[in-house]
């Protein structure tokens, strides 16, 4: 069973037969967490670094922003018995267009905002595939905890 996560969206599940998948990460970042003891995993597809540019939107849709979405993702997995120390974190996305003036570097800002949140909370990233100018699809296989990453136009590989 495929559970699809849209843009600015999040899903957490402990159903062993489920796959959490998000398509088309451009400058957005997909954050995958998995606890192999509680067998629970989650996937967040956030779009922008900071909720302060539109706090009202953040109240309605916290998954749009790194600073509101990431804490939400972790807390949601705790409800299913996950523990912070056991959660494995993998991330992908944060691409950018060709732009030497930095007007369009949301991907970099997304990555920086995410790193800051992880650093403050002592969370380590186990694996990542970020930057560049490619679209990425990310899939968490809940039966194994494996994370698969596909770049548009190429094959799927484990992250």
């Amino acid at each position, binding site marked *: 069973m495929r559970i699809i996560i849209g*843009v*600015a969206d999040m899903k957490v599940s402990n159903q062993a037969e489920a796959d959490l998948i998000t398509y*088309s*990460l*451009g*400058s*957005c970042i997909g954050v995958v967490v998995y606890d192999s003891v509680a067998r629970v995993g989650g996937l967040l597809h956030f*779009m*922008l*670094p900071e909720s302060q*540019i*539109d706090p009202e*939107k953040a109240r309605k*849709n916290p998954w*749009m922003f790194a600073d509101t979405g990431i804490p939400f993702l972790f807390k949601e997995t705790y409800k299913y018995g996950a523990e912070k120390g056991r959660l494995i974190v993998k991330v992908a*996305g944060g*691409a*950018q*267009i*060709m*732009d*030497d*003036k*930095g*007007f*369009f*570097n*949301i*991907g970099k*800002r997304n990555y920086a905002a995410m790193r800051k949140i992880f650093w403050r909370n002592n969370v380590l990233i186990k694996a990542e595939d970020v930057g*560049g*100018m*490619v*679209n*990425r699809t990310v899939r968490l296989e809940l039966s194994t905890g494996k994370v698969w990453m596909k770049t*548009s*136009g190429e094959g799927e590989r484990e992250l």
Partner: protein
Amino acid sequence: MTQVEAIVQTIDRLPPLPAIIHQALQRINDPRSSAQDVVEIIQYDQGITSQVLQVCNSAYFNLRRQVHSLKEALVLLGFDTLMQILLNKSFHGVLSRPCQGYDLDTGALWRHSVSCAILTEIVSRRIQREPDSRLFTAGLLHDMGKVVLSAYVGETFAAIKTLVREQGYSFVAAEREVLGIDHAELGGLIAEKWEFPPSIIAAVRFHHTPWLSQGDFAELVGLTHLANCMALLTGIGGGADGLYYAGDPETMHQFRLREKDIEKCLVQLNDRLQTMEAWLEVA
């Protein structure tokens, strides 16, 4: 026959633009014609009229009474909404085709195109311009050329990819280098063949090279360019060409936009995109 001529000839394989859409587009893009003029034209096509009314009467709009004519729909929903429904219904088919050369599945190009169309309006509002129905049209149709060029990109993908990944070409520049023509120019030719207004032809042709457009259409071209950059950043409907396209800093300067403005525009995209998807699910 040269390769470019062969590619240009394949435009003929596209379905012709329905006459009613052609006439409606002429009027949508003519500032002298009124909303009533456009409705007059469309209402003679029962197929399109009933499709548009079906959307108007759907649960989405939750109107208190049943709408029976386009004139009523115009009063209740406004001209821009009515036109967006019409354009979506008219071009959804051709823009939803899979484009394997770009690794785009069914519906992907439409999602990218409609995201761009919505963003042209969002950016235009951000720089405080008057509403202009050409914006949505230009955004929706900017990548028409990909529908035709897809087959050729597929055949030569390895060569294009080498230029892009190893020599720093943008995808559109690599298309031009390998095939002799790129999807923006080809899209411009399609728009010409369909006798679109000159402003829309310019927006399609120059959406990756806004600095080449001058005069009356420069603003529409610039807005289409920026909206496309933002749509690419979201990854929505993104393909094998990825984000290998250049954003023009001059256009940002012209409109006095900063990086934060891009974020503020993107925040507004999701809700509107869901709206348009809901329209298409009706019928």
